């Protein structure tokens, strides 16, 4: 059966799919051309190289075409496409349409392909004699990435997943048998609210630029082995390696900042497998950069440098396998779910793992590995040691992160550590101590050989000052209870001092050294900042008012980290007096205004600020998605998010007419009462005290014939007494009554009738439903001390890396 569907826009999808096929074709052509150009006997014949260049540039154009088609589809809300339907909605602000792009796996693969295409074009322009061999590797990787979004089935095996699949092809539903099905699909699923954050517009592109740029140093190292230009690849690859380090590092830091600003897991790093997967290749490449320098200056550590650069890209592929295959499902909160592309990812990984191994083994005998021993008092020796320690720290992270993979391979059923953060910190603090210490004292070592006496004299000053400063810092930051914390703080301060010394010399004229000194200072600051913030952050919303749930519960007393705030009721929380002042809704978010005050002993307000943690409420789903708000001080942050709020039902505010106030109450109950009677309600009781036979009503003039009777009531609720006097009026022939509200007790009372024959009065009681009695939020608040040291350190480190890139790029030109 062939249904003619109406309203579909098939052209952009077909065009997009054409571009995908074109991108595969051109990347294969580029790979073959460059391969032939590299292996050609006659190196003066440039025809293959020319074809390779053309194909690679066409490939970039095709990739841009794919992106343009996809953007067009999402931007115009063509929900006949599964990708647009699954990741966007009509209510989404325009700037977040960009984020929709990388919410799905297809879009993030596209992003990777795009960066790799762009970087390849830069390599073509800059690489000179390295172009053919390096581009062979890059275009091979481009072939693999292009197949990730093709979305075809060959012999039952699914290859790639296309972003241009139509909704009716992607799923089955009865509505697709209707030609006008599209008119029934009003809106897409929308973007995950957590991704609707400005950091999510910028974080993924930077992170993927980092991942993509790892291929370039890899390709150089590979080409060095392949073309037997063993030692020569280091110099041109160095700026690329630094570029990859700085972009991936910035991407990770932005992700960490996003987690801190927009997620409510309460921190900037959680050792989540997805986070680990991105930091491991970063650390191995940093280690690689250091030994590349050692080799270039002294000829030592050749194998270590090659190995670390090669393994870094393999680990990027491993990271994408971990996050995209769904294998982390039981251990990570934010991995992708499987798309059935595991095998494809594994082939990609195996290709870039096995071929380099083969090349290394084949060339082993000719590799320029020194037989000489390094001097202990030499820079190259400690660069090597530092790199190895970094690598071992990666092995530790990798081992724990890969538990689900080992389970799969070995068929075991091991669960990750119950306290993952503590498990990682135990090891990583020790590694960080060694690395920080080496990054300090090795600054005073020269390549080849340093005279020990001079070395000790130079470091001794820094050492003594560092000990003094450490004593002050650990005391002020209150971390002197833990020996490891003290040691790490000491090593980091020592490193800052040593590198500060170098920076001082740089300012006198040795500008070349400034980059590494700045980066090391930033790194050491980051370590101290992270350590102090992570070790001494404290939950300030400790709740001690909870009513017991039995002894068992109290015995296992985890800190009760959430506190309930009732609207307009100030609550003491640590040194703060916090008050929930109300909420307001903008778009999908509801902002809860929370006032913080610190009142000094003299009764004056010392600090006074408002925070607006928000939550997206979804009444239909009965869930909230909370985002924190943070007050930033120079020396600490106050971080606040709501953990629970009353769920709003679907509200209809548009039309107030025809709705009476009584709708806010439960079904009224009529009681027949006389003086002295008691009526109970949920939160208290009331007593009929008296009858006021000459009641007065504002604005109504009473004549002698009118009867106005008041019922004098005493209302008891929450240990408080309120009085109320509902009035019953007979004016002419009409019976009217004037009810009274006692909002504090959540009730309304009406004197609705007089029953003379029974000698009783009818009192109608309205009770508010339970939830509406008081507005509340459940809040969690954390104080992060000295977190700006961490953020400041990250920024300084990035600046240092950028300075180094400029220095190493100049070296290529002068070489």
């Amino acid at each position, binding site marked *: 059966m062939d249904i003619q569907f109406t309203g579909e826009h098939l052209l952009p999808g077909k065009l997009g799919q054409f571009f995908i096929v074109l991108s595969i074709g051109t990347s294969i052509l580029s790979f073959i051309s460059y391969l032939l150009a590299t292996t050609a006997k006659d190196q003066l014949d440039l025809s293959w190289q020319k074809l390779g260049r053309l194909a690679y540039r066409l490939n970039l154009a095709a990739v841009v075409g794919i992106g343009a088609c996809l953007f067009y589809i999402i931007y115009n809300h063509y929900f006949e496409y599964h990708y647009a339907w*699954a990741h966007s909605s009509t209510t989404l602000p325009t700037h977040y349409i960009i984020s929709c792009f990388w919410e799905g796996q297809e879009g993030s693969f596209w992003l990777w392909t795009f960066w790799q295409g762009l970087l390849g074009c830069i390599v073509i322009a800059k690489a000179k004699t390295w172009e053919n061999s390096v581009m062979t590797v890059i275009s091979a990787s481009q072939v693999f990435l292009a197949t990730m979004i093709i979305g075809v089935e060959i012999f039952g095996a699914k290859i790639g997943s296309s972003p241009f699949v139509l909704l009716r092809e992607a799923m089955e539903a009865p509505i697709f048998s209707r030609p006008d099905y599209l008119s029934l699909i009003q809106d897409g699923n929308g973007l995950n609210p957590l991704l609707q954050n400005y950091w999510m517009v910028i974080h993924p592109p930077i992170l993927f630029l980092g991942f993509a740029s790892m291929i370039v140093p890899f390709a150089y190292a590979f080409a060095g082995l392949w073309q037997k230009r063993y030692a020569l690849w280091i110099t041109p690859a160095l700026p690329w390696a630094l570029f990859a380090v700085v972009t991936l590092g910035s991407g990770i830091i932005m992700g960490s900042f996003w987690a801190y600003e927009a997620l409510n897991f309460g921190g900037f790093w959680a050792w989540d497998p997805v986070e680990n997967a991105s930091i491991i290749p970063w650390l191995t490449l940093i280690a690689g950069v250091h030994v590349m320098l050692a080799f270039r200056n002294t000829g030592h550590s050749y194998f270590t440098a090659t190995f670390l650069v090669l393994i870094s890209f393999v680990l990027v592929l491993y990271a994408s396998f971990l996050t995209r295959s769904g294998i982390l499902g039981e251990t990570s909160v934010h991995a992708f779910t499987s798309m059935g592309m595991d095998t494809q990812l594994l082939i990609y990984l195996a290709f870039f793992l096995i071929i380099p191994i083969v090349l290394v083994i084949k060339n082993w005998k000719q590799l320029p590995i020194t037989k000489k021993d390094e001097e202990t008092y030499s820079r190259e020796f400690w660069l090597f040691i530092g790199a*190895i320690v970094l690598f071992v720290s990666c092995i530790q992270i990798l*081992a724990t992160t890969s538990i689900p993979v080992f389970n799969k391979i070995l068929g075991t059923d091991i669960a990750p550590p119950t306290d993952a953060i503590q498990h990682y910190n135990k090891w990583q603090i020790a590694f960080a101590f060694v690395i920080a210490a080496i990054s300090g004292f090795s600054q005073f070592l020269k390549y080849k050989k340093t005279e020990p006496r001079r070395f000790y004299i130079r470091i001794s000053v820094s050492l003594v000052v560092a000990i003094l400063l450490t004593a002050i810092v650990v005391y002020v930051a209150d971390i002197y209870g833990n020996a490891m914390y003290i040691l790490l703080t000491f090593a980091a301060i020592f490193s800052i001092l040593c590198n500060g010394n170098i920076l001082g010399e740089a300012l006198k004229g040795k500008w070349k050294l400034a980059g590494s000194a700045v980066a090391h200072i930033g790194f050491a600051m980051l370590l101290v900042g992270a350590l102090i913030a992570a070790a001494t952050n404290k939950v300030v919303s400790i709740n001690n008012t909870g009513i017991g749930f039995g002894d*068992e519960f109290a015995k296992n007393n985890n800190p009760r980290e959430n506190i309930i705030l009732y609207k307009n009721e100030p609550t003491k929380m640590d040194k703060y007096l916090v008050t929930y002042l109300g909420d307001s809704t903008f778009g999908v978010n509801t902002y809860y205004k929370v006032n913080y005050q610190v009142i000094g002993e003299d009764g004056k307000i010392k600090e006074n600020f408002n925070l607006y943690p928000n939550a997206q409420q979804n009444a239909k789903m009965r869930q909230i998605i909370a985002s924190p708000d943070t007050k930033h001080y120079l020396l600490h942050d106050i971080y606040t998010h709501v953990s629970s709020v009353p769920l709003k039902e679907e509200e209809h505010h548009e039309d107030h007419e025809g709705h009476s106030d009584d709708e806010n109450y439960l079904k009224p109950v009529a009681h027949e009462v006389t003086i002295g009677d008691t009526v109970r309600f949920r939160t208290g009781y009331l007593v009929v005290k008296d009858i006021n036979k000459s009641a007065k009503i504002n604005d109504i003039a009473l004549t002698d014939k009118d009867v106005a009777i008041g019922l004098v009531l005493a209302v008891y609720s929450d240990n408080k007494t309120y009085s109320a006097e509902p009035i019953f009026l007979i004016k002419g022939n009409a019976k009217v009554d004037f009810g009274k509200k006692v909002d504090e007790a959540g009730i309304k009372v009406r004197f609705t009738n007089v029953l003379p024959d029974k000698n009783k009065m009818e009192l109608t009681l309205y009770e508010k439903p339970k939830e509406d009695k008081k507005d509340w939020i459940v809040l969690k608040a954390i104080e992060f001390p000295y977190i700006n040291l961490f953020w400041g350190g990250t920024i300084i480190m990035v600046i240092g890396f950028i300075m180094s890139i400029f220095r190493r790029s100049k070296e290529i030109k002068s070489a």
Partner: protein
Amino acid sequence: MKKSSIIGMIIIAIAIGAIISTYADSSTYGTFSEAKETSKELHVVGKLDTTKAMFYDPEKDANYFSFFVNDNNGTNCKVVFTGAKPQDFERSEQIVLTGQMLGNEFHASKILMKCPSKYTQDKIEVKEVKAQGKI
């Protein structure tokens, strides 16, 4: 022997130590009945029992959340979590609990949920206006 070889060996020893420590620190997946027999913390994988009531009343205690879970063997157990009720809890398909047994209650220190997220589930929301039929 080269100095770097000695260092290499030390490094390898540390790496092995790190990996062994991974397994020393690692926990096990278990069931409620296994949890009863050990005092160690372990992971229990199960499903939320929707037939029994969940309890979270922040006005009473904002840090007490209890619910019932059927583990993979079908054993039903009450679970207590010291904290606010996680978002999206009702919709979780599978729950991984970390904690230990105290009496007849499993006290979870961590809850990891697998949700068929709104943003990945393939369920079309159809809006349809039906014409009024004549009676």
